[in-house]
């Protein structure tokens, strides 16, 4: 049957997604930066009691920019197969291509937004980066964790479409439970013991350590997060491959 050139398909879908994202609104790509900036502004004024900390705004920028990247991969990745049902029902295409495109688009946007954030940190004399190796470890753990959930949910949503609703509602709750607004290290020991079971809490803390405090973060924990999510990704990929002939029937 048709031998699809998947690198060509992925790169073509990547550019077309970016193009559509830029043409969708009048301000186009400016929204990539405006959206996290609005979040930072709202949370900065909402949680006035934390403003006592001199670097609260920068802590927020670091957390929100990274959180939006991770949660964007998960929520858009979860619905990626459903959204491309037109292609799934007309071509013999492996559905794994769709969460991959979402991963690439969101990571590209994160690269752009993070550059602005780093420029802000440098301007505020707060940029204190960790080593490239530590950044590599953190980045690998972050990308594999978010992508493993994106692929897992992309398999499930054609069978349980309501899951999309659950994921989008859970995203806001998870933002508070991941230390995006309130750094978990400043909470009670009981709260810390509970919230540190959440891998995203370590990833958010890790990026702050790497960009603002020049620290490596907890390498062992990042490694555990990375290694424990590889099987989830592999199982999800296997499920997606095995169900690729069943998914188009479910989307009728």
């Amino acid at each position: 049957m048709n031998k699809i050139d998947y690198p060509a398909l992925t790169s073509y879908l990547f550019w077309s997604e970016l193009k559509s994202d830029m043409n969708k609104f009048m301000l186009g790509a400016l929204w990539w930066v405006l959206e996290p900036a609005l979040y930072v502004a709202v949370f900065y004024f909402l949680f006035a009691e934390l403003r006592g900390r001199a670097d609260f705004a920068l802590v927020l920028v670091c957390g929100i920019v990274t959180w939006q990247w991770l949660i964007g991969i998960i929520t858009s990745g979860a619905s990626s197969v459903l959204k491309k049902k037109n292609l799934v029902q007309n071509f013999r295409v492996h559905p794994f291509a769709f969460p991959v495109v979402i991963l690439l688009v969101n990571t590209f946007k994160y690269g752009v937004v993070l550059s602005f954030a780093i420029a802000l940190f440098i301007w505020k004399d707060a940029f204190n980066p960790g080593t490239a190796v530590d950044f590599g470890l953190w980045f690998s753990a972050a990308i594999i964790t978010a992508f493993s959930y994106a692929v897992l949910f992309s398999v499930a949503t054609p069978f349980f479409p309501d899951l999309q609703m659950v994921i989008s509602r859970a995203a806001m709750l998870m933002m508070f439970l991941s230390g995006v607004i309130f750094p978990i290290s400043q909470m009670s020991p009981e709260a810390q013991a509970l919230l540190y079971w959440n891998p995203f809490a370590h990833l958010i803390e890790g990026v702050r350590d790497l960009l603002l405090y020049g620290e490596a973060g907890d390498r062992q924990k990042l490694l555990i997060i990375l290694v424990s999510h590889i099987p989830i990704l592999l199982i999800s990929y296997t499920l997606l491959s095995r169900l690729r002939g069943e998914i188009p029937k479910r989307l009728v």
Partner: protein
Amino acid sequence: MVQPILELENVSLLYKSGFNFLRARKKIALESISLQVCPGDKIGILGRNGAGKSSLLKLLAGIYKPDSGTLSVTGNIRSAFIGLQHGFVPYLSGIDNIMLTGILMGMSRAEIHGKQREIIEYSEIGHNILEPIYSYSAGMKARLAFAISVFSEPDILLIDEAMSVGDRAFRKKSQEKISELIASDAAVILVSHEPGLVNNVCSKALWLEQGRIISSGDSAAVAEQYKSSFDSRIRTRSSEERKGDGSESVAGLSEGI
């Protein structure tokens, strides 16, 4: 003996719905279908709505996986499936969709670039090719889908009633193109409600009813069988309606008295 490029053996296909694994609802779309497709075959699939025609085509295109039976493919064949949904991405332009659809049909980027001009000319889309697909009429989309499919030079062309869309001139042009493909040894499988079209285009035919093969063989014979079953059903229905009308009027009359 010619080796089949595609072969279905006792294939059944189910649509499952509901999420209770113990009591999931199952609808049989195809039951015990066997079919051989050889290079140069022109096979028509006839049947009423819900007969399983489109499901069979998607199975042959490899989009659906059979629930039982075997689907064997010989060698590395290129198939093109033209359905009424086309598989276009609405917010992308016609030209972007040519590239995307071409890649999904197994063409390389260079191959698509080489054939782009021919596809645009053949589909008669003109300057609209730069506009997003959502602004196209159903006929324009059908012409573009057909053009991309035939210029991908498939080994097997699967057409799902798409030829009934578009004007008479384009239908004639598309039938000529199909004849060209057949001359180059491609197999064509055409799904239709119209026995006349199947008889004109195809040499073999298959009549499906509720997922089962009712009849198969020479296209003229199968098309005639299908047509006469249709005609007799219409005759039975209209005579029942006439009887119904009479009894109603008698009942109405008696009520009035």
